[in-house]
Structures are given as structure tokens and as C-alpha cells.
């Protein structure tokens, strides 16, 4: 158990294991994404009220779900670095921020595109949409704060605190549609009762959420590998790696 954590703290080991994970996970998730897109665009039936426009849900919901989960990844990695001073946790926190920001941006954009034909507006300051906008600003804030420090140790400590403080936003986003009168509809996927979505539409959605989690893992690992090489560029293992690739 502990030896696993010690290995996780070693850059060459993490670089090696992430390489062998990516070798199959990256092609597998790209194929799964293409198959999923074909499934939701060609096979899944249209909705009885919204027709075909609801299909954007198969991008909108997974990006929104993973952007929130990604925030926990970032904040927990930040906390691990704060407490145990584990370098790899700092790398994970720094690399999770731009991916999370991109996913949040996609969720907002797809939501706006979906909102125009269904609600009749691109944007409305409702609790759900505004709290997701705050999530985007939190991600951008972490990216900017990290770059604002010359001392990387101080930067990662400040970013970890910001991520931890921002964590309170995630349950607010999740419950906003239940706590307040909002234009955004409540969740269709329910954990405690039957989902209010036909099975022929629900399973593709769950599938797409899993695919986006896999894609997120790939992007995070790719980003972390680049960051590792950059940080350890003067170390022996990176030099040996570069020599080997020539």
C-alpha cells in the first residue's frame, strides 16, 4: 500500500506507468467517443417535445459532469500537496485546471446553443448557469494565480487554498435547480429513484459520461507527462529518455 504511494511520488515511475496506460486508453476512448457520437446522432430516438435539438445533451451533460468532478480532482490534489508536500499532487493540480476550464467552457457554450431553441434565450442569469460561470472563473483564477508567482512553492500553496475554498461551489451547482426557482430543468438522472428519461436515451447518456471521464483521464495524464518532462528536464532520467528517442 505505502510502496504504491512512494512510487506515485517518483516522476520516472509515473511517466512510465502513464505512458503504458495512455497507449491503450487514448485510442480506446477516441474510438469510444466516435462510436458514441454515431450512436446518439443516428440511432437514439428524437425527444417527444424537443425533437432532435435535445441531442446536444450528449455533449452538454458529460462536459458539465466531468468539469465538476475535475474540480474535486484539482482541489483534492491541491490538499494532498498542502499536507504531504507530494510533488506529483502539485503537478496533477496544475494540469487539471486548464482541462477543467475547457470542459466548463464547453458546457456553457453547448448549454447556450441548446437554450436558444428550447428556452428562447442564449443566456439567463439563473442560479445554475451563474454558478457554473463561477466555476469557470475559479478554474481561470487557479491558472492565473499559478502564473502570478515566481516562487512555484508559494504558487501551488495559494492555488491549493483557492481550489479548496472554491470547492463549496460544486454542491451549490448540483443543488441549485432544487433550491431555487430556475429556468434550468432539474436533473434527469436520479440516484435514489427512477430516472425521468427513457432507457433508450438514458444508456447512451451514461455511456457518454463514462467516455468523457476516460477522455479526461487521458488529457490529464498527457498534460502531466508534459509538465513532468518540463520540470525534470535537467534530471538524468529525462536526458536518458531523450537520448533513447533520438
Amino acid at each position, binding site marked *: 500500500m505505502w510502496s504504491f504511494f512512494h512510487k506515485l511520488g517518483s516522476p520516472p515511475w509515473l511517466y512510465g506507468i502513464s505512458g503504458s496506460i495512455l497507449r491503450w486508453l487514448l485510442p480506446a476512448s477516441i474510438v469510444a467517443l466516435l462510436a458514441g457520437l454515431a450512436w446518439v446522432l443516428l440511432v437514439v430516438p428524437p425527444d*417527444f417535445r424537443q425533437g432532435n435539438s435535445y441531442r446536444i445533451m450528449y455533449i452538454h451533460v458529460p462536459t458539465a459532469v466531468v468539469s465538476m468532478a475535475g474540480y474535486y480532482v484539482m482541489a483534492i490534489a491541491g490538499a494532498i500537496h498542502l*499536507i504531504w508536500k507530494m510533488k506529483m499532487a502539485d503537478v496533477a493540480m496544475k494540469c487539471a485546471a486548464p482541462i477543467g476550464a475547457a470542459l466548463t467552457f464547453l458546457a456553457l457554450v453547448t448549454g447556450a446553443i441548446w437554450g436558444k431553441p428550447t428556452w428562447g434565450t442564449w443566456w439567463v442569469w439563473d442560479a445554475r448557469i451563474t454558478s457554473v460561470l463561477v466555476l469557470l472563473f475559479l478554474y481561470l483564477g487557479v491558472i492565473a494565480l499559478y502564473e502570478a508567482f515566481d516562487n512555484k512553492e508559494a504558487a501551488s500553496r495559494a492555488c491549493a487554498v483557492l481550489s479548496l475554498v472554491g470547492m463549496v461551489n460544486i454542491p451549490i451547482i448540483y443543488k441549485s435547480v432544487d433550491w431555487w426557482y430556475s429556468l434550468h430543468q432539474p436533473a434527469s438522472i436520479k440516484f435514489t429513484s427512477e430516472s425521468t428519461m427513457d432507457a433508450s436515451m438514458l444508456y447512451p447518456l451514461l455511456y457518454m459520461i463514462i467516455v468523457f471521464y476516460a477522455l479526461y483521464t487521458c488529457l490529464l495524464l498527457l498534460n502531466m507527462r508534459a509538465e513532468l518532462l518540463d520540470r525534470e528536464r535537467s534530471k538524468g532520467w529525462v536526458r536518458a529518455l531523450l537520448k533513447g528517442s533520438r
Partner: protein
Amino acid sequence: MHPVRKRRLMIVLFIVLFSSVAVGLVVYGLSGNINLFYPPAEVVAGKAPVGQSIRVGGMVVDGSIQRASDSLRVAFELTDYSGTVPVVYEGILPDLFDEGQGAVAAGQLDANGVLQATEILAKHDENYMPPEVAEALEASGKAPPGAGSGS
């Protein structure tokens, strides 16, 4: 656990707890203001300001939509089943706007308690199903949740 790490863990937990309480109090304090719209019952009870821009959200009452034949003027009623607010609007309605469906109307209340709407937003619910399933539900006598009679 190492005492230094234990202290840092306590600091982290404190940050999370403290910020949650702080934000929780702000959200609780603002709870009324975060709502996007007033429910019709509160408008009927006089809790919504007259002559100011407000939003009212509810279900469009079945059979209440009256369209003018020579203009885009439309009148309908919004209800939350404990109060009903009449709304008039001139303009293009969203596709999903229908009787028996949720809608949010933005505008001003006039002296007669009629909402002079400047914007109508359709509010769709969380139910999704293929058209065949909706037809089958209707045929079996169970109207699909939220399905309007006019569509």
C-alpha cells in the same frame, strides 16, 4: 500521522469548513433573491412589486392561450395551482411554449394585476422520451408528464 502533517490537515479541513459556512450563510441570506422568477401565488398575494421588471414562472393554463388574429399579440395565464396570473405578450414565442408547459414571463405588472410581458422563455422539464413512447403513454390513458394538449 506526523504532527506537522496533522496540523496541515487541520488547516485544510478548517479552510473547507470555514468557506462552506461563509458561502452557506451568504446563500441563505440571498435565498429569496437568487430565484429567477416569482411563482404566481406570490404575485397574487401581492409580494411582487408593481411597475418594476419582474419574472413570473409557472405552468401555462390549459385552454388559456388566446392569439390575436391580426397581430403577434397573445394572452395566456400562468399558474402554480395555488394562484393564477394573466399575461399579455406581443412577439415571437419559443418553440416549446405550449399549454400545460412551464414558461417564464419577464415584464411589468400593471395596476390590474396583468403581467405586460416583454420576454417569454419556455421552461422544459426533465422528462425525455421518444415520440412513440409518449404516444403509447397517451393511448394507455396516462398522459406523458408535462405533455400539452395542443401539441
